[in-house]
């Protein structure tokens, strides 16, 4: 039952790649936006806040559709990016983009939550010690937000690992290029009698994601122990 077809192996590896790239690639942006939302006030903040949540609210298919409109070859951003050599359409990079977008609200929220819990008095202490606010952010705020960053990464990774609606709409289902594990699973659910196959792949998917989650927990616990002694 656990012997994999070459196509499935490809899909699994691709899923891992897509989910990792999506998560790590969106992390800097997630941190930035989380920081803006947690610590700054500026006009349009509420709008930004709502915007970040959009991928949760909009059905994935619609998100995929919007991504296609924006980042497709003919899309305003897509055509511009293509000129500088960045192509998303029908590429695994597009799958990563879709997954990143879908996981973004989760990433941002978790990081923001942790950042808001960082005691601003510690940041003030850092500043009196001569550290520029940006360095205080790097040396105090960010390390103390680690639980949220880890949680955000886990959520975003898990989401990416399960994402399918936006991905398949945006970059289709091209084996070896954009066919991730969930796309493969979906295919099986659409054929009569494919349940067993779908379940098999689902279990594999769960097993992989579970390992990732457990690793992150270990990491989180270790960093917590360091802070709490």
């Amino acid at each position: 039952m656990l012997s994999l077809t070459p196509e499935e192996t490809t899909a699994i590896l691709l899923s891992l790649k897509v989910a990792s790239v999506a998560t790590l690639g969106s992390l800097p942006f997630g941190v930035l936006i989380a920081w803006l939302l947690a610590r700054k006030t500026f006009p349009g903040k509420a709008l930004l806040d709502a915007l970040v949540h959009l991928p949760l609210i909009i059905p994935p298919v619609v998100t995929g559709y919007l991504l296609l409109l924006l980042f497709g070859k003919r899309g305003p951003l897509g055509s511009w990016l293509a000129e500088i050599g960045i192509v998303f359409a029908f590429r695994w990079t597009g799958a990563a983009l879709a997954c990143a977008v879908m996981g973004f609200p989760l990433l941002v929220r978790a990081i923001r939550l942790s950042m808001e819990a960082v005691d601003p008095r510690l940041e003030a202490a850092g500043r009196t010690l001569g550290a520029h606010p940006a360095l205080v952010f790097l040396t105090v705020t960010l390390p103390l937000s680690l639980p949220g960053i880890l949680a955000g990464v886990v959520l975003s990774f898990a989401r990416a690992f399960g994402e399918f609606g936006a991905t398949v709409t945006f970059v289709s289902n091209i084996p070896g290029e954009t066919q991730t594990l969930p796309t493969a699973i979906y295919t099986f659910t659409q054929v009569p009698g494919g349940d067993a196959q779908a379940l098999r792949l689902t279990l594999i998917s769960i097993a992989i994601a579970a390992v990732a989650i457990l690793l992150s927990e270990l990491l989180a616990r270790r960093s917590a122990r360091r802070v709490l002694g």
Partner: protein
Amino acid sequence: DLLVFAAASLKTALDEIKTGQSIVPPAQVKISYAASSALAKQIEAGAPADLFLSADLDWMDYVERKKLVKPGTRGTLLGNRIVLIAPAGSKASVKIAPGFDLAGLLGKDGRLAMADVNAVPAGKYGKAALQALQVWPSVQPRLAQGENVRATLLLVARGEAPAGIVYASDAAVEKNVRALDAFPANTHPPILYPAAQLSDSRHPQAAAWLAGLRSAAAKAVFAKNGFTVIAAHAATN
């Protein structure tokens, strides 16, 4: 209420028929549109539906095998064709024939948009047709398979893919695509939309409503939406 489970692609037509005058007996009708696969599995799980309108034969067979179809009520409601499409602005023109230069039409790095060739009916039919026409090997590595026909249509309409294969009914409504040619009916299994009353259905008007879908007025609506209306004699399929 009369509860109809219908394939999502039938929505435009069915909504018009439901609200249209005297096409079907007036009744409190609710139509749940979803993927045929989902509907079939829900019926299997005991959904309180009266009628099932599937977008392909396989899922109706699946339901029938589970003895959930009221004997004698199954019939073919509609037919459809698959066509080769290109973006509306495309200058391409091809004639579908055995060995036709589909790969050439895609250009250097273009992709052929299709619905999932293993799972979604339109994809399965398209694959069969391309195999029959012996162009399958040349385009197989260059497919972009969508979740469903709508995704395929979208890829071509947006110009992301230079060509795609969709139902004629879809191509008929989407202004941003142009049908290049239809695949000959003999290159793929017949595309049929079976309909049946379900064995648990107790609604007194279920049968009459199903019959109404086969009325001339209903057929006119279906035809308007690009479906092929199946001759009465084939209805026993």
